[in-house]
């Protein structure tokens, strides 16, 4: 069943994702850390779906769809920002109207 260890691993991966979002400066790496957090949550859905039936797996399916859409739009935004400022350093992107 491995419910407890799965949820613990999910928590560890989520915390690592949060730490990555907070400490990195490269916008693309921050984005990848968001994907890591989504994956961690998927793991807890899957672990709990053993107990509660397949609805958890269907929720994972929807999370993956939203993550794919989010990656496409987010990377397009990063491309637009890069064209504007020639940098993806989040500490440099600090002007609301540059």
């Amino acid at each position: 069943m491995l419910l407890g260890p799965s949820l613990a691993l999910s928590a560890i991966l989520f915390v690592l994702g949060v730490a990555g979002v907070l400490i990195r400066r490269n916008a693309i790496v921050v984005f990848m850390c968001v994907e890591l957090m989504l994956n961690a949550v998927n793991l807890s859905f899957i672990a709990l779906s053993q107990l509660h039936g397949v609805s958890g797996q269907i929720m994972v399916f929807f999370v993956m769809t939203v993550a794919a859409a989010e990656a496409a739009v987010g990377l397009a935004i990063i491309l637009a920002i890069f064209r504007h400022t020639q940098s993806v350093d989040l500490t440099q992107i600090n002007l609301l109207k540059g």
Partner: protein
Amino acid sequence: MFYVFALWAVVSAVLCITRNSPLASALWLVSTMFALAAIFVILQAQFIAAIQVLVYAGAVMVLFLFVIMLLNLEVVPHDWKRWPGWVFGIGLAAVLGVTLVSMRSYTPARLAREVSTMPSPVDPRLVFPEGNALVAATASQGAVGSVAQPLFQGYLIPFEVTSVLLLSAVVGAVVLAKKKL
């Protein structure tokens, strides 16, 4: 077996958030996703594991690699934030970790007991059942069928809304990536 893949996932994730080069980070994230796919198989979600490899490790990460290579960034020697920033970040993540660890005392029985003391429209035994519901469904319908049947019956409208979401994401990405915004 689970613990091997769990260790693999955690080590890959740590390397993903500590590598300086975004390319190395992306490849370590792919490694994490493969380990998670293996864990999904162990947790009896074979279909989701296949989707994880195809969609996440395949499509989404290739998109990331394309953008990294398209931007052709120089590797900065130190990609972390300046000193108050990263200490604050790790501290906040540690607080979150402690909060999550403190939730390990919640067992399904305790949750059912606490929920049953509150007024609730549903029977708590329905929300927190004991036993293994998934194995029975997979045994009778197969790994794909047990996911597909509720997806195309109970979750049909969310599924159709998802297609609209993907269409709007495609349109949004094309508009945002145009030369002149």
